[in-house]
């Protein structure tokens, strides 16, 4: 009976993790190609403030998380386009100051009980079947959109200028990508946590790079590597009681290191 209960508790988180890695493969590939890793970090860090504000104003925390993530993405979107603005520094300031403000506000709201560690490092046991359903819906929507707009997204990534001259809706495609990123980061946070969420976006595609000859292959391999990482990490967590989010990231990193041995280019 115990074993059954445990596997039930693990089913939802595992399913969420697996669904999520299907999206983070292609989406993370775009993050890597467009060098948006820092942007993803900023979204994740800013989300803590969103969670805090959500808890204080008594909204559903997942909804608050989604809303704040999307709002932040829309605020940061114009900045993405001004490359000359030394956006590294600016994003760094925004990213860490939002994390800091989030932590301070959280500590001030004393009557609010928030599991800080759970948000920072992920809390798998808090993943409910509703969460899993949301992840599933988001995954289907995002994968559908990516497949539908694949050529435009890729053309915009290779050269926004050539894409613009060809008549692709460059600005709209960039917005689409950023909104999908915000959505996925918000949902991934429960599983891997704020601090490690962008690792799930970047490490699997990086591992997939040396195995692929086309962008489609890279996106697909990144999803597969993500799936294997989730399985490995969660199994480790199950058997050795390690924290699940970090275990998944460690597994992905091991796969990345292994991939560098293959055909180093």
């Amino acid at each position, binding site marked *: 009976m115990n074993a059954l209960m445990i596997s039930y508790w693990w089913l939802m988180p595992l399913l969420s993790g697996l669904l999520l890695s299907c999206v983070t493969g292609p989406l993370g590939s775009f993050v*890597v*190609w*467009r*060098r948006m890793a820092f942007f993803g970090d900023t979204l994740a860090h800013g989300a803590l403030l969103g969670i805090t504000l959500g808890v204080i104003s008594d909204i559903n925390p997942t909804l608050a998380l989604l809303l704040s993530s999307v709002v932040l993405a829309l605020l940061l979107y114009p900045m993405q386009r001004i490359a000359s603005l030394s956006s590294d520094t600016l994003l760094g300031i925004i990213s860490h100051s939002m994390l800091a403000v989030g932590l301070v506000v959280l500590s001030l709201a004393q009557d609010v009980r928030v599991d800080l560690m759970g948000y920072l490092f992920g809390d798998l046991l808090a993943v409910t079947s509703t969460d899993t359903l949301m992840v599933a819906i988001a995954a289907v929507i995002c994968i559908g959109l990516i497949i539908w707009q694949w*050529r435009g997204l*890729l*053309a915009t*990534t*290779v*050269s926004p*200028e*050539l*894409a*613009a*001259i*060809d*008549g*692709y809706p460059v600005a709209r495609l960039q917005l689409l990508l950023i909104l999908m990123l915000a959505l996925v980061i918000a949902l991934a946070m429960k599983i891997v946590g704020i601090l490690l969420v962008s690792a799930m976006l970047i490490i699997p*595609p*990086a591992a997939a*790079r040396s195995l*692929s*000859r*086309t*962008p489609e*292959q*890279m996106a697909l391999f990144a999803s597969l590597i993500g799936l294997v990482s989730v399985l490995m990490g969660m199994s480790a967590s199950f058997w050795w009681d390690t924290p699940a989010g970090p275990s998944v990231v460690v597994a992905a990193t091991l796969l990345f290191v292994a991939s560098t041995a293959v055909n180093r280019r």
Partner: protein
Amino acid sequence: MIMPDRPLLLKATGLNLKRRHKQVLTDISLELHAGEILTLIGPNGCGKSTLIRILLGLEKVDSGSVWRRKPLTIGYMPQHLQLEPRLPLTVLGFLRLARSAQDSAIHGWLNRLGIQLLVNQDIQDLSGGEWQRVLLARALLLKPDLLVLDEPVQGVDVQGQHELYRLIPTLRDELGCGVLMISHDLHLVMAATDEVICMNGHICCSGHPDLVSVSDAYQQLFGQRTAPIAHYTHHHDHQHCLVGHTDDDPTAETRQP
């Protein structure tokens, strides 16, 4: 050359652009008709590429206006294209990204440009000259009404440069397109262009290269050194060449700031 029977593709009027504290472009006006080859020459940093980007609608100006015929299919070959090493892409994959590109057209142009063997190669592994040809193929894929070439021979060996410049008038005749190109080497483009605009932030002079080359001003400016591979160095202080200002040259467009 002004060809009234050919449709106007592009017209810029009084373009001005200031960036930070530098006046990049001053009062630039030009026209381009179908079937016409117009070359912008000038020293590095004189605003040629910026002007092209403005004409293409990629950048904004402070004042002045750009009119483009609608619809206008543009084939653009940029000077640089920063490639992301983490993005694996073959030549075919790259060319397929061009909107509504047909595989038959891709293979046709690759054959024509002599790079059909590169079709499955990773674009990271191409030499400078090969990459320029792939970019040219991409610009030609969609049968452009207007072909825009920003320094098309960069990274190409001398033999290849001559080939490419011989190809451009042929392409113009086949496609019936207008061609706007940038060069910093007047000699190389002499035979390939109908009209030359010398610029250095503003338009210093402009005119038909044949008429330009027989004019006294041209001889004075470029001397007899224009042997096949002689290098022409463009010194623009603020002495404007007189080309195009001569009265016996009715086809040359004259601009004197």
